[in-house]
């Protein structure tokens, strides 16, 4: 007999808005049809996802489904990557790029993927002392990047670094450039995109073409503190060590995944 409450659903706070009511209702109906409906928990700024997930696992939860967008996904998994359960993802609304990589359609169709339970182990990035799943962004600063303790990369002026794990990186060559160039990260390695800035005119800066380095371990060092944004959490650092932790998250993915 199926255990009670095997599935737990973590709803993002923004889903309280009225415009999402119909979608949420449709999703819940579909989940009930498949027999995978479960306990619903609503996230807010004062809830630590790791703690509530651990509590639910103790009560017998086997699968935790994140309902929301890229921000929700990053917020939950950066804190709860070590939890011993299977994760699912139900992308709702806009700002969903990770779901494309995972091969999960948005809204109601995502329930079909969830019910099929095709599981994959996903890599997680490790930054200083916490996990990140989607993307790490270092704002332009004078940086030195050391890869695998073997070679160092520097730029003449400031440099911006983006480390991609699951979330693809979009960039524009300049402001006038309309076509966005997309790079999809490969699985099994983290990908770092370095964009040096060169001075143009008195105050202006111009982005150069990005450099791409696949890596497993890297260190970003600077003389002055620089801003790091990992899965939506911003901090100031002087030294950042980024590593890859293999096979940390069990995730339900779709057939059309990009890895």
């Amino acid at each position, binding site marked *: 007999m199926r255990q009670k409450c095997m599935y737990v659903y973590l709803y993002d706070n923004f889903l309280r808005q009225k415009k999402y009511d119909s979608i949420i209702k449709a999703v819940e109906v579909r989940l009930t049809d498949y027999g995978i409906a479960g306990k619903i928990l609503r996230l807010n700024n004062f809830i630590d996802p790791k703690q509530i997930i651990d509590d639910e696992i103790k009560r017998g939860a086997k699968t935790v489904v994140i309902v929301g967008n890229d921000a929700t996904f990053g917020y939950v998994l950066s804190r709860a990557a070590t939890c011993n359960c299977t994760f699912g993802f139900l992308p709702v609304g806009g700002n969903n790029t990770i779901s494309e990589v995972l091969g999960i359609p948005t809204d109601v169709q995502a329930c079909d993927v969830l019910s099929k339970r095709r599981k994959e182990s996903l890599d997680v990035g490790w930054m200083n002392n916490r996990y990140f799943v989607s993307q790490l962004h270092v704002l332009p600063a004078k940086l030195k990047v050391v890869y695998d303790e073997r070679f160092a990369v520097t730029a*003449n002026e400031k440099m911006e670094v983006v480390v991609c794990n699951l979330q693809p990186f979009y960039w524009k060559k300049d402001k006038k450039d309309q076509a966005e160039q997309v790079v999809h990260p490969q699985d099994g390695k983290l990908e770092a995109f370095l964009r040096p800035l060169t001075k143009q005119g008195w105050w202006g800066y111009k982005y150069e073409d990005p450099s791409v380095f696949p890596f497993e371990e890297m260190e970003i060092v600077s003389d002055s503190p620089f801003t790091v944004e990992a899965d939506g959490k911003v901090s100031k650092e002087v030294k950042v060590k980024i590593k890859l932790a293999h096979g940390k998250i069990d995730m339900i993915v779709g057939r059309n995944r990009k890895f």
Partner: protein
Amino acid sequence: MIFQKPTPKNVVEEEMTQFDAQTVAERVDEVETIVGPSVNVEGDFASEGNIIVKGTVSGSVHTSRFLSVEPGAKIMANVRAGTAKISGEVKGNLKIRETIELTSTAKVLGDIECRVLSVEPGALLFGKVSMPGIEGAEVRNVKPRTSRRGEETAEAGE
């Protein structure tokens, strides 16, 4: 004369173009590491995939696959690669397993070791080129070199 059989020279050229077309297709598919312009790389730069260099690299470069040095790029290092296309500046010895292509903008200061070498008119090369395939060449090459070195040291001693 018109209906003459293709000379061995022509055959080799045809084979070469086919091989080039293949390698170009491979290169486009698997671009992995890109060193962008105005980026400096120092140290043992190694990659399992293809490398495209548009900036500056010093130390050593190693890949088992394709290396492309774009116009304006500078490499001050010993290079080891599967195949290579050089359009920029290289100061150091090149050890290429298969084919190396020097385009018209290439500047190479160092010895080249490869199987197939193609040089476009305008390319600058200063160094020794050695290719496997000629029997006895290695023995001949080694002997005079050692004697020359001996002479040089003798001269320096004087």
